[in-house]
């Protein structure tokens, strides 16, 4: 599979203090990759290095087959979209005028504006002045701005942090559609449900280092206690280890028709993060 992003031994220091240490990961073209970590873990620093807003101290970085010295080129910028904590809008202008500016800067057709406004559920708000919008609506306009030129790769730093569940679901739907159309998505989030639902692979970043990297389901399996929880009609609660030797016992219970409920208790990504790093994702 072709890489959209390659990071090897990445190190970033601020005032001789390491914010990122030997960070290694790859993002494949067409996947949704989630970088998860608490505040201050280095997520935003990683995005800023990958988008050319920060210089790395050492290591190798390549995005869309381009090295950091090309990250300031128009060619690079026209292939990526960014929604970060630095992203802002012109408050005195309308939603439409803001998007029109970026449509022209990216040389995208103006019809794109309506398309992205539908994608972020703001079709009826295009004439509204940005200063009059709620925080959640502004976040959706910023997302529309990042998508306006149909980038090959999009960086989303906490894209749904200010959204209500309804709009979050709408955005997720839009992102999945975008991903299906071939856009690679690199996102950072605190929201474990979001990561489980959206990401093909996730990486846990803690204290500037990648602690785990895998598919969410594989991670949940890896950190499960590998036990079947069985509740019988007689009220008995059994915990049977998921090993071949116990297959007969489970089979018998099923044949007897005494199984009321049976489940495994794979941990959530949040629980795994806590287990791996010793701290919660806040």
């Amino acid at each position, binding site marked *: 599979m072709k890489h959209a992003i390659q990071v090897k031994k990445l190190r970033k220091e601020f005032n001789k203090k390491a914010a990122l240490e030997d960070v290694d990961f790859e993002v494949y073209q067409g996947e949704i990759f989630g970088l998860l970590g608490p505040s201050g873990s280095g997520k935003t620093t990683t995005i800023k290095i990958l988008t050319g807003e920060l210089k790395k101290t050492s290591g190798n970085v390549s995005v869309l087959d381009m090295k950091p010295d090309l990250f300031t080129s128009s060619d690079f*910028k026209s292939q990526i979209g960014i929604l970060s904590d630095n*992203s802002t809008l012109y408050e005195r*202008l309308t939603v439409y005028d803001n998007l029109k500016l*970026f449509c022209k*800067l990216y040389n995208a057709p103006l019809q794109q504006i309506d398309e992205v406004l539908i994608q972020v559920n703001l079709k009826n708000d295009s004439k509204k002045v940005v200063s009059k919008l709620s925080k959640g609506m502004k976040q959706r306009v910023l997302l529309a701005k990042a998508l306006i030129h149909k980038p090959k790769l999009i960086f989303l730093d906490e894209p749904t942090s200010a959204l209500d569940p309804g709009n979050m679901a709408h955005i997720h739907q839009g992102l999945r559609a975008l991903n299906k159309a071939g856009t690679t998505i690199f996102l950072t989030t605190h929201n474990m449900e979001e990561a489980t639902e959206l990401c093909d692979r996730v990486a846990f970043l803690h204290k500037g280092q990648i602690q785990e990297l895998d598919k969410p389901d594989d991670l949940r399996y890896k950190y499960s206690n590998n036990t079947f929880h069985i509740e019988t009609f007689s009220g008995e609660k059994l915990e049977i280890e998921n090993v071949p030797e116990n297959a007969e016992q489970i089979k018998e219970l099923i044949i007897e028709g005494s199984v009321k409920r049976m489940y495994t208790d794979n941990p959530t990504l949040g629980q795994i993060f806590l287990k791996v790093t010793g701290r919660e994702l806040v």
Partner: protein
Amino acid sequence: MNFQRINAIFEKDMKDFMKNTMLLFMPVTPILLAALYSQMSMGEGDGMPISLVYLVVGVVFSTTTSGLIMIMMAEENEKMTLRGLIMSPASFWDIIIGKSLVTALLTLVTLIISLLFTDIEHFFNIKAMTGLILLFLFFLFLGMGVGLFVKSVGITSAYLLPIMFLFGFTPMFEAFNLADTAMKVAETFPIIQLLKMHEDNSWAPLGVVSLWVIGAALFAYICFIRTRRDD
């Protein structure tokens, strides 16, 4: 350079300008000053003295050119919208030219109205016009650099006042009875050089003003590069 991108930035700035009352009133001050001076010198026969005309020119460039671009850039910097432009495919020149066009247009209108009140005929020759263009570039780059350097619009007035005083009101320095060394330094300032050009009918002062333009352009460029990255 990409004209579509330059035009997009100009169009956005024009819309933003029309909704910004603070900026809308900035060109009014030099026009009122020019009207006032024209009333003061009425009936004196020989028209307005050239030093007074250049004082009006200095006020136009310092308040309108430097003031407008400084506030516009400082606002972009403060609200992080400049980063959005920088992270787009627009080049350094697309952004700089696009952002300068509104200021250029307003400076032109303000300058013409102000000079119509005073004495526009002094500038009906190539040398004087070149001087005005160089002066415009100097004040534009100076304002741009300060706008990029400061972190908020609120701080711009602290920088605009010294610029107005030093580079806009320079023709008044003679009246202040300054020390010889201070006067010698002031004589190298752009407006005094252009006054010299009128008096001596020489091209040399334009060279000195060009050096000021290059210095201001370098200052603006360094400040722009600083805003491109977070480190």
